[in-house]
């Protein structure tokens, strides 16, 4: 069967959890509003067709960019059956979307999710009653425990009956307005329900205003007249408020009939935790402490020991094994070099750092799934306000520590275009997991004592540079508008091991996959460039093509203290993906007798090593980030700006570090 169903509902109600359960995929789940920011398509189990996961909405009138995706979808797909998922513990608020869906058509299956949360709060819902009042099927589920999933398949099978849409009476004045607009829209072909369009238009739905722009001036006049008449009769209220109020009254009457409350409200666990983590004085210290813990775990306590073990395994066992096998097979020396020096050297050099990357992703998933992410925005908002931004920017920025690409996507849930744009250009300075191997490599050679501290200082430096940029932009280009902030704080949820592991694996997998494709290919090419030169093949490395390319750039880097062709060509390859810097270095600094670590120590001093890490942190976003930035800002100008600002800052800051270090007498 080739049916398509769409998941629609309020933000953070478990749409993606349900999507994953119904399609067996592993899309991104997290406990705050605005996790999903784009349309995702999956194949339903039991050959039932396809399911579309969408961002969350509160009404059909979009405010932020992710909500606009949904409004657009509803307009473009007027007949697609809808799986409307609602948070049972917030029935009243959630039903607003349901009502608007039903006004469109009744091809809707209602899923009451989070039954467990509702029951815990003493809220019980009579499904059968709700079903008969709304005249649609209702299924209770617990998406994250995958309970009630079979009933959904059953419900979806029965969905195709088309009955008449829900009609609410909005009072004589508004009804007259609706009828006149409908008349104007009568030549609009397609399956779209004109009454629904008219109501949405009267309510001020921006997306629909755009769609109807051709007949705009006439219907705009009808809307103004209707609003005037309404205000004449009812006093100072807006049309949008009136329409919402009619729905609210209807919803209240339903809620009164279907809900029973069995417990007196008490102080919930969430509130108790919030009293501590959003405490007046403790809020920011707790946030900083948690961040520090993440660094300690990733770099000191667990990450490094594991990565050392992996290193031993890769060099002493895997490499030796390959060497022996190749010797037995008697392959020609060229192939042997490609495999041992190029592939095992380059890819292995990066893979060694897998433990740190997985631990970092695990910690980030913990932040995301617990509900703490939303609290970070709250405790940091005052500070961000001083920077001219809002606390919500912290969500994309923290996601950016994992990878800048999803970070830039996550900025979609920021309501104001201005704040969203600034957040996006700040993102490349968030030190992503791809930069982590570079730090890990240098730290393990030069800063054995203060591993976590040095890493932390780089992350902080990135944040400082990003905030500086924000401050500059908000006090020049974007001076006129001010930033706004409103955030919903979801209840804390105990993260589940399964979700955490899946989330960590899904993100970490990207790193391993990159190692197998990009870094693999890159390593082979880089190795070839070191193997060949103007003088032929198998030339000394200093006469290779790579050395020549690097030598062009090296003089520019000389004031920074690492003006060698090796450093220059590593930086150049880092534009592809930051990890490639490490594979390039592994190939360049590979010597048969000495370990790369030893050779590195010859070419860098602790000071220039720190300078080099700073430069890597700031200099350019990787190729993938540039592509997403271009796509999301719709602006070459801003993308170029982000790249140039990075380059300039990288140069200046590294220069200052090196020169100050020298003056202070640090080698």
């Amino acid at each position, binding site marked *: 069967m080739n049916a398509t169903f769409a998941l629609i509902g309020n933000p953070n109600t478990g749409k993606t959890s349900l999507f994953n359960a119904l399609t067996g995929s592993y899309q991104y789940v997290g406990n705050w509003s605005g996790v999903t920011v784009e349309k995702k398509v999956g194949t339903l189990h039991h050959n039932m067709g396809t399911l579309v996961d969408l961002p969350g909405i*509160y*009404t059909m*009138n979009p*405010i932020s960019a992710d909500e606009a995706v949904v409004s657009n979808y509803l307009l473009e797909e007027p007949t697609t059956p809808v799986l409307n998922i609602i948070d049972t*513990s*917030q029935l*009243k*608020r959630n039903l*607003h979307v349901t009502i608007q869906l039903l006004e469109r058509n009744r091809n809707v299956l209602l899923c009451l999710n989070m039954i467990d949360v509702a029951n815990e*709060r003493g809220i019980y819902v009579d499904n059968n009653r709700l079903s008969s009042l709304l005249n649609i099927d209702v299924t209770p589920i617990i998406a994250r425990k995958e309970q009630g999933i079979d009933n959904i398949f059953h419900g979806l099978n029965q969905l195709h009956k088309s009955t008449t849409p829900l009609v609410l009476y909005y009072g004589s004045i508004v009804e007259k307005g609706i009828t006149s607009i409908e008349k104007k829209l009568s030549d609009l072909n397609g399956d779209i329900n004109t009454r629904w369009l008219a109501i949405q238009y009267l309510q001020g739905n921006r997306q629909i205003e755009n769609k109807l722009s051709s007949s705009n001036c006439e219907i705009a006049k009808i809307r103004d007249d209707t609003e005037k008449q309404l205000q004449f009769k009812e006093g100072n209220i807006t049309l*949008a*408020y009136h329409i*919402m109020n009619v729905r609210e009254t209807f919803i209240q009457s339903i809620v009164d009939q279907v809900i029973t409350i069995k417990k007196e*409200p008490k102080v919930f666990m*969430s*509130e108790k935790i*919030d*009293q501590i983590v*959003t405490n*007046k*004085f403790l*809020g920011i210290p707790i946030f900083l402490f948690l961040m520090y813990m993440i660094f300690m775990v990733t770099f000191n306590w667990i990450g490094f020991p594991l990565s050392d073990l992996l290193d031993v395994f890769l060099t002493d066992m895997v490499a030796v094994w390959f060497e022996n096998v190749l010797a037995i097979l008697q392959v020609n020396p060229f192939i042997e070099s490609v495999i041992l020096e190029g592939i095992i050297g380059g890819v292995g050099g990066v893979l060694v750092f897998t433990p740190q990357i997985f631990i970092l992703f695990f910690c980030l998933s913990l932040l995301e799934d617990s509900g703490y992410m939303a609290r970070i*925005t*709250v*405790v940091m*908002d*005052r500070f961000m*306000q001083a920077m001219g931004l809002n*606390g919500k920017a912290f969500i994309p920025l923290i996601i950016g520590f994992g990878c800048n690409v999803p970070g830039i996507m996550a900025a979609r849930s920021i*309501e*104001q275009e201005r704040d969203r744009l600034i957040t996006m250009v700040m993102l490349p300075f968030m030190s992503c997991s791809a930069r982590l191997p570079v730090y890990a490599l240098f730290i393990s050679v030069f800063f054995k004592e203060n591993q976590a501290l040095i890493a932390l200082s780089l992350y902080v430096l990135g944040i400082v540079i990003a905030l500086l940029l924000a401050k500059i932009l908000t006090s020049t280009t974007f001076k006129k508008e001010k930033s*706004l*902030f*409103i*955030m*919903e*704080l979801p209840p804390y949820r105990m993260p589940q091991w399964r979700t955490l592991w899946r989330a960590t694996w899904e993100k970490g997998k990207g790193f391993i996959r990159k190692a197998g494709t990009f870094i693999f290919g890159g390593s082979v090419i880089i190795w070839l460039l070191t193997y060949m030169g103007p003088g032929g093949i198998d030339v000394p490395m200093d006469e290779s093509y790579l050395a020549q390319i690097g030598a062009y750039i090296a003089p520019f880097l000389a004031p920074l203290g690492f003006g060698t062709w090796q450093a220059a060509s590593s930086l150049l390859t880092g534009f592809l993906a930051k990890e490639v810097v490490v594979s390039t270095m592994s190939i360049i600094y590979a010597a048969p007798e000495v370990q790369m670590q030893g050779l590195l120590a010859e070419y860098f001093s602790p000071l220039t090593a720190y300078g080099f890490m700073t430069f890597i942190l700031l200099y350019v976003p990787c190729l993938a980030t540039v592509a997403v930035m271009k796509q999301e800002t719709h602006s070459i100008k801003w993308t170029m700006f982000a790249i140039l600002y990075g380059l300039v800052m990288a140069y200046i800051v590294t220069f200052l570090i090196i020169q100050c270090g020298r003056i202070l007498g640090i080698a």
Partner: protein
Amino acid sequence: MNIAQLKENEVAIVECFSTVDQLIKDRLMQLGIYPNQEICLLRKLPFGGPCIIGTCGQCICIRLYDAKGIEVKKK
């Protein structure tokens, strides 16, 4: 009086929005905060930081400036 003038854990009824920004007003409406709704001020963060308010079992955080723009009357 307005929300910012409430004491922590004090309950009040929303009367009207006066100086609240349009975008925030739209969002508040969507989240179920509009005239005649009951709200409770849960916490105010220091140095003019945001306020956390509760309604119908949900928590919403807004800036002090906007909280000052929401007129309420005590229950």
